[in-house]
């Protein structure tokens, strides 16, 4: 029986997921390693009556989707690390104006121009703010092509639900990897259009702004935002592989998590009680789940393609900080299985 699956790259899967979620406006600026995604949208969006704009910069791209979303379209932009840095101002504005958009970061090595290899160096930027002011956005960390597709659709649903930007945070390898994908259209609830700007016909004029000059007004608005960010905890997702009886737990997301799963598979065959805890939402972070699973285990090894950014959240989650260790690779290098096993205290 021939499979009904198709072969797509992670970048293309994000594009198709977006289109099937109802995305009808995309603006972007070329940057490696996510160029296939921009090209996919250029080809695909006109087929469904959507609009594709190649912007003059990432600044313009993110502001275009701000406008498009304000006019009622589901809108997305995608980029890689340096381009995402340029977008931080507008992301803060959209959090402040409660404009829902989806932003995809296919991370590359940094800082600066860095390189084009996959990396996880933008975790703190994505989860702790990045732009100015007290805001957060939901952050999804897919780890395969199917999840690139699925979580892009989820990102659209939740951006609308909370009227807030949502980020899909992948690394360059996830953008480039090709895997079979089962294409399923998500059922999205109807959008709340009661706030969009489409002309004040037979209604009062509407205003989208983030400016609140009196301090008490701005604080009140911030309290509303903080309440919203807390409510997002309902959406927390994580995955545990063989964690139930695990004595040593690896914590990783994205491509790093896949490498860790391989290590656990090898370890289990040799009778080692190892497991992997993989946060899927990086904001909100699954603190409680990790705390529970981490109780009683001997060691927690955090593995990242960074200098130790998610590590900070893991340390917040666990009670006994002494048992947390870290192994990270930077600059586009990948964590190595043998090194992970060594750090778990096992000869290979």
């Amino acid at each position, binding site marked *: *029986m*021939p*499979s009904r*699956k198709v*072969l797509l790259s992670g970048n293309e899967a994000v594009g198709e997921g977006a289109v099937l979620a109802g995305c009808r406006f995309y603006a972007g600026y070329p940057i*490696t*390693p996510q160029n296939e995604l921009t090209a996919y949208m250029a080809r695909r969006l006109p087929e469904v009556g959507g609009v594709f704009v190649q912007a003059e910069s990432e600044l313009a791209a993110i502001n275009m989707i701000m406008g498009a979303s304000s006019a009622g379209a589901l809108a997305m932009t995608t980029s890689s690390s340096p381009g995402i840095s340029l977008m931080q101002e507008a992301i803060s504005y959209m959090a402040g104006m409660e404009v829902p958009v989806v932003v995809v970061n296919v991370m590359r090595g940094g800082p600066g121009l860095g390189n*084009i290899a996959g990396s996880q160096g933008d975790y703190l930027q994505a989860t702790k703010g990045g732009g100015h002011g007290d805001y957060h956005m939901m952050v999804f960390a897919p780890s395969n092509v199917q999840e690139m597709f699925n979580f892009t659709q989820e990102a659209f649903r939740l951006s609308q639900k909370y009227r807030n930007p949502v980020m899909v945070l992948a690394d*360059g*390898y996830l953008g*480039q*990897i*090709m*895997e*079979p994908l089962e294409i399923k259209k998500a059922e999205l609830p109807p959008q709340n259009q009661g706030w969009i700007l489409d002309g004040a016909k037979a209604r009062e004029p509407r205003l989208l702004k983030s400016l609140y000059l009196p301090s008490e007004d701005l604080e009140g608005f911030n309290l509303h935002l903080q309440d919203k960010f807390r409510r997002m905890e309902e959406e927390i997702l994580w995955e545990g592989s063989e964690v139930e009886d695990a004595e040593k737990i690896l914590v990783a997301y994205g*491509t790093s998590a*896949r*490498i860790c*799963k*391989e290590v656990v*598979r090898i370890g289990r065959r040799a009778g080692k009680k190892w497991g992997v805890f993989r946060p899927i939402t990086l904001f909100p972070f699954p603190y409680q789940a990790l705390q529970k699973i981490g109780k009683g285990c001997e060691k927690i090894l955090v593995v990242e393609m960074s200098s130790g950014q998610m590590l900070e959240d893991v340390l917040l989650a666990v009670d006994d900080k002494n048992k947390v260790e870290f192994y990270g690779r930077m600059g586009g290098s*990948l964590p*190595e*299985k043998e090194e992970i096993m060594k750090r778990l205290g096992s000869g290979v």
Partner: protein
Amino acid sequence: MKEEIIIAGFGGQGILFAGKLLTWASLIEDNKVTCIPSYGAEMRGGTAHCHVIVSREEIASPIVEKPSLLVVLNRQSLDRFEKRVLSGGRIVVNSDLVERKVERKDVRVYYVPGNELAEKLGSSLFTNMVMLGATSFYTGIVKLESLVSSLPNLLAGKEELITSNQRALKAGYEYAHAAG
């Protein structure tokens, strides 16, 4: 069954195309499969390679650290990856562009005159398909028919190219069959 493969050559030899075709063929055989291309500057000269993993089981890490199968289309790629091949693994070598022999004694090696066979079909551009056809025979990781029937997925509408690539796949397979 789990095969971890690196296909490597220089930019322009159709390395990624070969990797994608192998991936599609594995998909229609209902295997789990992943393919990660090298990308970026390497597209324009230099070495290009891709990591393909074919498995009956769910694939955890898509990264090939130590390939069980290495297919090299040029000398630089053999120099770069030979040491990484698993003991007991296999190397398929395009002997036209790799003038040296494989040094490893703990692997099985197959030499295929990829360019020569491709040129007989009209262009050295088919070297990638010749090598993939030969690899199919030597390793059995994927059937020749699966490769052949996957071509339209990558070359939709380009009938002439589909036919010529099919011919090259078969030429490689038959060479391997005859050479043993």
